[in-house]
């Protein structure tokens, strides 16, 4: 079984919590998020500290919702976009939980959930927490230009979400993680940091194709195929190229980057991105819809662009990865 990892022990998402900044609160999903701050600095003195604070709030919120203490959690898997994953490591020092830092760019939320599910499934952990975050201001100055720099963005550029989402994976809960497909690092030669959707789409296509080649399910069995975050451009490429290969996901596809903002009204060009985007949309909206049975079977594919400014300056292109998790409500078949 090279592609799909099936989880017999049925790990479940037993708690979740989302934290967002002001633009995300003003977006179409504004009321879904558990916590928002109109001050994007979250009362801290730097953007990086603000990102750490979002992670702290997200984990604390998920623990509280589950009625657990930090010592009840066996392992904390966390990641963000900042160099050396400092958003996570600084933000989570208050918790008495063994910590593992992850990097998968915007795919980190899916990566964390997949690893936590595997750890539960294999019996290594009874309860795992995973959390990811991104902050527009901290990312902007790391990957692009200073905040106040006067420049114009291209229509294909995406907007890093200020947000964080935390999950607790254990044996209790209504939403189960049934299957996982880990992505390959795929580079199709795109080097434009302002068109990351195009850089990530091929990795996403590869993962989805590998899933449906081996799965007992067809596209029609799912209520939603959710990517995070290809944005407008990447989503169009994904749907068109998959269609040309005989996989039609047009009716049930959505993208976290397109859901979190009103692209036109909020002037967010191709939509949101960043590992806080899919995490906050999943925790704020999708898991709740699964719990209420509005959705019953969802494929979530986290897509990450794995470049750094350094490799781009050296003339490199952007490799990308896409990890897939199949989420399903427990009583789907009954």
């Amino acid at each position, binding site marked *: 079984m090279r592609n799909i990892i099936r989880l017999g022990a049925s790990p479940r998402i037993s708690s979740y919590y989302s934290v967002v900044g002001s633009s995300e609160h003003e977006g179409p999903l504004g009321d879904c998020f558990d916590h928002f701050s109109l001050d994007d600095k979250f009362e801290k003195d730097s953007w990086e500290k603000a990102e750490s604070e979002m992670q702290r709030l997200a984990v604390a919120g998920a623990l509280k919702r589950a009625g657990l203490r930090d010592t009840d959690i066996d392992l904390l898997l966390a990641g963000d976009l900042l160099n050396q994953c400092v958003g996570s490591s600084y933000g989570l020092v208050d918790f008495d939980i063994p910590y593992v830092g992850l990097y998968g760019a915007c795919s980190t939320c899916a990566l964390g959930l997949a690893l936590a599910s595997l750890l539960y499934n294999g019996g290594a952990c009874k309860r795992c927490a995973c959390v990811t975050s991104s902050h527009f201001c901290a990312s902007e*100055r790391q990957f692009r230009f*200073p*905040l106040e720099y006067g420049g*114009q963005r291209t*229509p294909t550029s995406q907007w890093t979400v200020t947000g964080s989402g935390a999950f607790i994976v254990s044996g209790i809960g209504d939403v189960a993680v049934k299957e996982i497909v880990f992505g390959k690092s795929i580079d199709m030669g795109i080097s434009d940091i302002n068109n990351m959707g195009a850089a990530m789409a091929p990795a996403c296509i590869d993962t989805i194709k590998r899933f449906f080649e081996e799965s007992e399910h067809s596209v029609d069995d799912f209520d939603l195929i959710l990517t995070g975050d290809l944005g407008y451009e990447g989503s169009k*490429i994904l749907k068109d190229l998959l269609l040309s290969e005989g996989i039609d996901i047009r009716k049930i596809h959505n993208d976290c980057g397109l859901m979190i903002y009103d692209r036109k009204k909020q002037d967010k060009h191709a939509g949101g991105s960043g590992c806080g985007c899919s995490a906050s949309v999943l925790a704020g909206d999708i898991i709740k819809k699964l719990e209420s049975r509005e959705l019953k079977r969802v494929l979530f594919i986290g897509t990450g662009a794995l470049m750094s400014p350094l490799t781009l300056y050296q003339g490199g292109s952007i490799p990308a990865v896409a990890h897939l998790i199949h989420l399903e409500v427990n009583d789907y078949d009954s």
Partner: protein
Amino acid sequence: MNKDEYKEYVKRRAKRSASPKNCGFAFLIGGAICTLGQALHDLYMHLGIHEQDASTLVSISLITLAGLLTGLGVFDKLAKIAGAGTLVPITGFANAVVSPAMDTKSEGYIFGVGAKVFTIAGPVILYGLFSGVIYGIIYFLWG
């Protein structure tokens, strides 16, 4: 689809920036900045300042204004519409120096502002000076 075909496919389908609109705004706002510069020049001359000093004062005034607007968070909003209209005049250079200075303040005045203030403007300064040296040598030898 191989890499080259995919790159071509992406390039073909990607929506481009609205060039005619951007050029129009760049012309209008850039032109307005230059008109402001000329008006300031005339004002300084009217106040009895020598022409060469008046030109220097215009540059200083526009740099100060662009720096101030950057600090107030207005410049980037204007530049988003104006594009090259604010970038090409000396205002763009001022913004390129002030914005990294603001951004890196959290890392302190040595490793932050001091080390990174010319992150964007640095290449312009370096190669501007270098071109000046080359021009000077050519002028000295054949001028």
